[in-house]
């Protein structure tokens, strides 16, 4: 108890150094925990890009590729799914809903997604959130389009703007669907997911712009079908790229997956998004580890600051040690006194660091979400955070042993004489 109060009062006496030391440890601890929160948030943000979908179904090929072009709007599909197959699976008794995706066109670098009303009703991300309109409504006609928030923001489009789509995902130019412009009828709210970076049209719209196209090539000049002459049956989709599927009961998921994979009319494959996302995430494991290592070193630097702060006081405190010695404090008590000081610095550093981390996340949450589309949040105290803080304290004791041991040696050598 006495040692505690001595250590406390000694630290208080050196207020400025103490505060600076505690602050530097706090910053490093806040950074360590912050990096951890960032890491978990990134993973969470990533894996909650899509929720509520049990299976993603596309033409047979690479599972990862299917995930990339459906959920992340990256890469391209090599094969399509027949519309009849989609309809058949949509009506399957064990299936709750399906969301079709028809991909392959773009507008000034943004992907175009042909889908139906289920997308606005059933699609979920971050567990329970769904796409909402800030203005306007979902496209209903073949010449209507809705914009993701990034698209609207970057291109400055509003409801009523005419949009010309481009075939393929290259730059605008040669293969424009300029005969059939779309009208923006709605703009979606920001979701911080790939939803923001796409343009949404109806499946009929997707068919309309491709009427007369053969084998991916535009109609010969003179053979184009003007929008006014489109017949209803022209608009019926022939194929889609992929579809999302939700089973009525999650228990059926594996069975449906197997059935899709064995579907006879055409070669299809179904993937479970969570599993595929996990595989994808594991490829960035190295980045996670690197972040953790950097965090660890930051803490080490903070603790070395403490070592310097205590070590530099050793000489001026030799008299204090001699006095304590004369009063009957043994060298072990002197050692303990210094260790307690290190521990106090580290413990207050940890406590302040946790506070700083909370404050930092609260302060940065909005900016980070806006700028990077990452929903940064502290996931609450997990056992591993306790382990981290425990490790920081252990490291503090180990590092604190350096000046403590030196003080111990000094007291043994000095005895009651004081060399200042």
């Amino acid at each position, binding site marked *: 108890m006495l040692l505690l109060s*001595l250590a406390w009062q000694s630290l208080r*006496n050196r207020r400025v150094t103490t505060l600076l030391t505690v602050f530097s440890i706090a910053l490093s601890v806040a950074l360590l925990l912050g990096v951890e929160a960032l890491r978990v948030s990134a993973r969470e943000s990533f894996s909650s890009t899509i929720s509520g979908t049990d299976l993603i179904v596309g033409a047979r090929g690479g599972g990862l590729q299917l995930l990339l072009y459906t959920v992340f709007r990256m890469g391209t599909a090599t094969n399509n799914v027949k519309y009849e197959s989609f309809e058949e699976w949509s009506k399957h008794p064990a299936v709750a809903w399906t969301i079709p995706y028809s991909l392959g066109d773009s507008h000034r670098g943004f992907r175009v997604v042909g889908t139906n009303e289920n997308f606005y009703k059933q699609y979920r991300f971050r567990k329970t959130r769904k796409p909402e309109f800030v203005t306007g409504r979902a496209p209903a006609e073949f010449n209507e389009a809705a914009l993701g928030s990034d698209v609207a923001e970057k291109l400055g489009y509003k409801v009523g703007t005419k949009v010309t789509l481009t075939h393929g995902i290259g730059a605008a130019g040669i293969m424009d669907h300029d005969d059939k412009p779309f009208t923006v009828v709605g703009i979606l709210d920001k979701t911080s997911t790939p939803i923001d970076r796409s343009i949404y049209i109806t499946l009929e719209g997707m068919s309309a712009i491709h009427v007369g196209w053969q084998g991916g090539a535009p109609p010969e000049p003179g053979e184009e079908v003007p929008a006014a002459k489109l017949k209803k049956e022209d608009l019926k989709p022939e194929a889609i790229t992929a579809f999302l599927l939700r089973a009525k009961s999650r228990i059926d998921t594996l069975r449906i997956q197997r059935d899709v994979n064995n579907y006879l009319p055409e070669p299809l494959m179904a993937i479970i998004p969570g599993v595929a996302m996990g595989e994808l995430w594991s490829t960035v494991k190295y980045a996670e580890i690197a972040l953790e290592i950097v965090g660890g070193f930051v803490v080490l630097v903070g603790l070395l600051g403490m070592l310097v702060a205590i070590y530099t006081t050793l000489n001026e405190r030799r008299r204090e040690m001699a*006095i304590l*010695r004369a*009063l*009957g404090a*043994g060298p*072990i008590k002197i050692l303990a006194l210094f260790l307690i000081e290190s521990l106090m610095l580290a413990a207050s550093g940890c406590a302040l660091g946790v506070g700083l981390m909370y404050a930092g996340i609260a302060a940065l949450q909005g900016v980070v979400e806006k700028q990077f589309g990452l929903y940064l949040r502290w996931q609450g105290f997990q056992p591993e955070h306790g382990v981290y803080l425990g490790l920081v304290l252990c490291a503090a004791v180990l590092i604190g042993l350096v000046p403590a041991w030196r003080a111990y040696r000094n007291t043994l050598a000095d005895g009651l004489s*004081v060399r200042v």
Partner: protein
Amino acid sequence: MSQPTLPSSITLDSVEFAYGPKLPTVIDMPSFELGAGESCFLYGPSGCGKTTLLGLIAGVLQARRGTVKVLGEDLSSMSGSKRDAWRGSKIGYIFQMFNLIPYLNVRDNILLPTRLHSSRKPEALERIAASLGIEGLLDRGVLELSVGQQQRVAAARALIGAPPLVIADEPTSALDAAHRERFLELLLGQCKEAGAALLFVSHDQSLAPMFHKQLSLPELNRAARVELV
């Protein structure tokens, strides 16, 4: 003044000490004796092994040869930690200067021995402070005090809890003549009242007449005489 019923406070018998096996002998004292409750002036100019001798008596250092008996205990037979505890509870120690822990106030400085050792009781604080004239300073920070006041606080700390032996290592060298005598009177008076033996080391021989006994370290310590030659 010595009370023959009590054992002597300090008995040194053919004590030799060196700081290392190959280093020169610093202390070589055939005998030294201080009775219980006795006050002794030990004349010790610098370089005659004064601090070393006090270290031996306080049990911080251990003699290479001979016996050091203090307050009835043979120090060579005690373990280091036991000697530390023993010193803290039985000996009041006053340094030449800078006696106080800078981050504790006057009261906490004085009470420090009582908090380290339960055998030293804090009750006499007010009385000792009053008799040393520092009762008004108890809640002050020690850095606000004059050197004279600091030394009186150090004396109060040495006396609190009535240790049977007080060792003062040139406590008056930083004081001017007037304060020096006043301080010494207070210290002697308090030791007498508490029945504590006082070993007072100084190079200022003008103070010697105030003590029961006057000794000269260069005469007692053969190692010092060799060095002086």
